[in-house]
């Protein structure tokens, strides 16, 4: 989770509402996983986005004019996709931060069968290999280039 508090954010209420909507459109609830707009997740996302305000606010102002709230969810996604190229930097930053928050969330990780937020200290058990797999190779004569005298 980011060290920056969500309360440090200077996003306006309308901007927060739009960001919440975008989070839910990008990753809605499903497959037993929460929406990226889930309050705990959104707080984390907002914290991460707070360092990018100068970059994101102008694009947010334009996206606000799309009146997404008047459309069905699938139509909203279609409309967003139509604007991704024009606002590539905005979406690059937004998507990256949403993904970093979402896929580090413990509820999400648990649903994916990943039971710790970091590999260390628990590590993972990887089954010992049955090296009989190598039998077809073991019978092969050395084939690296063995140099003769003078080479």
């Amino acid at each position: 989770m980011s060290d920056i508090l969500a309360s440090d954010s200077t996003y306006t209420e309308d901007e927060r509402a739009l960001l919440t909507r975008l989070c839910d459109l990008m990753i809605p609830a499903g497959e037993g996983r929460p929406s990226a707009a889930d309050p705990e997740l959104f707080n984390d996302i907002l914290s991460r986005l707070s360092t990018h305000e100068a970059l994101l606010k102008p694009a947010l102002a334009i996206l606000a004019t799309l009146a997404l709230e008047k459309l069905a969810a699938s139509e909203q996604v279609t409309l967003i996709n139509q604007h991704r190229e024009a606002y590539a930097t905005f979406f690059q930053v937004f998507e990256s931060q949403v993904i970093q928050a979402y896929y580090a969330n413990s509820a999400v990780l648990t649903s994916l069968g990943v039971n710790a937020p970091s590999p260390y200290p628990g590590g993972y058990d990887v089954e010992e290999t049955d090296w009989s797999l190598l039998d077809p190779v073991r019978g092969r004569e050395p084939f690296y280039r063995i140099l003769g005298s003078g080479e």
Partner: protein
Amino acid sequence: MSNEPVDVLIIGAGASGAAVAWSLADTRMRILCLEQGDWVNSANYPSAGPGYETRQDFAIRPNDRQLDVDYPIDDGESPVKVVNFNGVGGGTILYMAHFPRFHPSDFRTRTLDGVGEDWPIDYATLEPYFAENDRMMGVAGLAGDPGCPPKEIQLPPVPLGKLGERIAGGFNELGWHWWPSESAIATEPYNGRDRCLNLGPCSSGCAQGAKASTDITYWPYAIRAGVELRTRCRVREITVDKKGMATGVIYYDENGIEHEQKAAVVIVACNGVGTPRLLLNSVSTAFPDGIANGSGLVGKNLMLHAMAVVQGQFDARIDGFMGPIGCALWSKEFYETDPLRKFKRGYTMEVVRGSGPSGTALNGMMMGVLPWGSEHHAAFDQLFDKAGSICAVGEDLAEEHNTVTLDPEVVDSNGIPAVKISYTLGENSQKMIEHAGERAKEVFNAAGAIATSPTISSGVSSGHSMGTARMGTDPTRSVVNEWGRSHEVKNLFVVDSSVFVTSAGVNPTSTLQAVSLYIADSMKKRLATLFD
């Protein structure tokens, strides 16, 4: 700190600097190593905390890290991006610990294949140093590989995991060679290092300390033997006297204070980019084009390896993010020159494990296969833990137009000129990449992959910088002699991968450390006549 003169001054505490310091320590000479970065605390490695896949402070590219101990590298026009780490351990902090040796043929490419140049030394000369280095680093693997010369192995191999087994099955189906990778990873406790826990992201540091980075292998022994290691000391230039002998260096400490350090012998160990940078920055009346640059070859003949990466997608989870990311298996099937192919020399195919959740999602979004909306989760489930890659590391022939030069405009945090990389992939490399990409796809198909990516060769990253201060017996065609001493400055040595004459088709760390041990031993055998 004391700047009293020392017998030996080593610049750089990475893979080669650590090895040469340890080897020279038994001479009882006063040895000092200056390192521009810090010691790294393994508790700070990303894999010890949340968000481990996306932290930038341990990013492999210095241009992404942007730490004050890093220096800018303009590689914007190069298809291969430069990777390094500035700190005690150097590149071994972030390397994948894939630990192959160069093959005997790699030292004789001109004689055997009519390309590149022959080295002035051969595999047999380096063999005892390879073995010594393996014992110091601790190498996991399996003896008996028919694709490589025989060697002693210290530790059991890294387990393949489901991903590795699937791909090994593909190689078997095709009748092609594969073998478990030789890996500088403690699969059992070794010399104070605990066993590997299969954390995954070795390339952002090993929190467990199982990976052999030189801060935990060579350095504790070297320091115990009396070597002084001074961190946060960035060398600006090597100084010379009127006779053209090196007298020491000028460096900046952590607070930007300038110091002069005198030394009887100067050893440069800053890798294939940092070494030419320092040599070119060391301008004097005696050496107006940079020290040791009478041949004009300092910074030229840069080799970064021809890389071809193909990702394969399977229909079931394969524990792809568990286990050392770069160490599973290799194939030497296409390593040696085959006259039936359209290129000379060859490549190693190496299996690279998959990403964790964040890495999978970021890649998926970047590749345009992870959508917004209700299909997001299903698409993610198709990607996560079901993918792995084959990376072909191909021999990159030395070409003089591939260079490291000083950047005329950009400087580091101490005002020292930074570097610019000018590099293109030659025709031989391009044909090799094309061949390797197609073979990798065949392997995935034979292994039952449901999809493969196009071959990726541009935008890939390489910490394998070689050739920019090559060794040789002819002073007009090389920078250092056959035991690492500058042709022109008799008390100046280079011990890192800059001295490589060819790049081979393998990761270079094992070989560059063997070379540095060999050079150290050569110095010890000639102590009475070192400057003759």
